[in-house]
């Protein structure tokens, strides 16, 4: 799947090495549901292979159009074909690549994939209350706030709320046309 800035590609076990520094970077994992476990290359490889073999998950690498550089991953989990729903998860591991619109574009691509290819009806996600960047990205794509799970997450020695957001197929179909190219990126 190809956007204007990034494209999504399958990941293989060989990509695991790139993920190891990312998933052990406290600034990256701060907003992820990865838990306290230390991840090594083998664990990452096992995770990628498990996702690829799974009938209820899809995982893509996020790569930059121009250079082909892998900067993170995005995927759908708990895909339920009976209810036609799934959960979205994303990580841009290269911190220098944050704030350039890549996350927003990757999210749009995966949401389109969910509705058009998987024929789902609902894509939901959990995002921690302090992940304002993440919340902004999902709002931009058209996700709506469904509620706040109080004290659902522990980080840095205290409890934080988890925000639940979702986009329905009917909302995505009615989405406004995308704005013209962002001037920051030209």
């Amino acid at each position: 799947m190809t956007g204007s800035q990034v494209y999504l590609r399958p990941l293989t076990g060989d990509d695991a090495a790139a993920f190891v520094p990312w998933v052990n970077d406290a600034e990256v994992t701060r907003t992820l549901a990865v838990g306290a476990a230390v991840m090594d290359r083998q664990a990452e490889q096992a995770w990628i292979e498990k996702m690829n073999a799974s009938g209820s998950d899809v995982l893509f690498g996020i790569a930059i159009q121009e250079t082909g550089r892998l900067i993170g991953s995005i995927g759908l989990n708990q895909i339920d074909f009976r209810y036609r729903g799934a959960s979205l998860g994303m990580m841009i591991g290269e911190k220098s690549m944050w704030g350039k619109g890549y996350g927003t574009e990757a999210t749009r691509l995966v949401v389109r994939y969910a509705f058009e290819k998987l024929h789902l009806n609902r894509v939901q996600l959990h995002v921690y209350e302090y992940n304002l960047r993440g919340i902004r990205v999902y709002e931009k794509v058209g996700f709506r706030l469904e509620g706040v799970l109080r004290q659902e997450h522990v980080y840095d020695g205290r409890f934080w709320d988890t925000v639940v957001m979702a986009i329905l197929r009917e909302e995505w179909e009615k989405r406004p046309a995308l704005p013209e190219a962002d001037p920051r990126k030209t």
Partner: protein
Amino acid sequence: MRNPFHIGTDIYLRPLEPEDVPSLTDWTTRPAIRTVLDLFYRPLGQSAADLFLERTKNDAHDIALGIVAQETETMLGFIGLNRIDQENSHIQLGFFLGEQKADGERYLSEAVGLMQRYVFAVLGMNRLWLYVDAAEARTINLLERQGFVREATLRQDRYLDGQYADTVVMGQVRGYGGD
């Protein structure tokens, strides 16, 4: 009372036993209860009941208890916990009443209250939560009276009988009433 685990005023909660399989099988194959449980959209017969019995064995925090009337020693329904998250200190609650009786709500409130005390005071959890069908206003009210808050509404989250249904997430946090 036989093997009580938690004792209330009119009911008590006890571990499920192989003798309970016939009533569990009867309940879990009824359409109304199958819908609540979600798991049982496939015809499962006795294996659904076996699943309940197995749960407790596989994980110390996967708990399934029978709700039993003290006076008559009849099992009225089931209440349980699963999906413990130790790191984030929360756990999920689930229940159903097999028999729709006039006293059902009172018994259910009592059972929920016993589990709330167990989750906060014994397991030391910080948060207890559950999913409820958004159309189940009575259950939502009952839980609100027990100190739960309606935290989120998951739109078109399930597909039942040819249409989408919303799911409500109810949550209770330690120190915020009810515990």
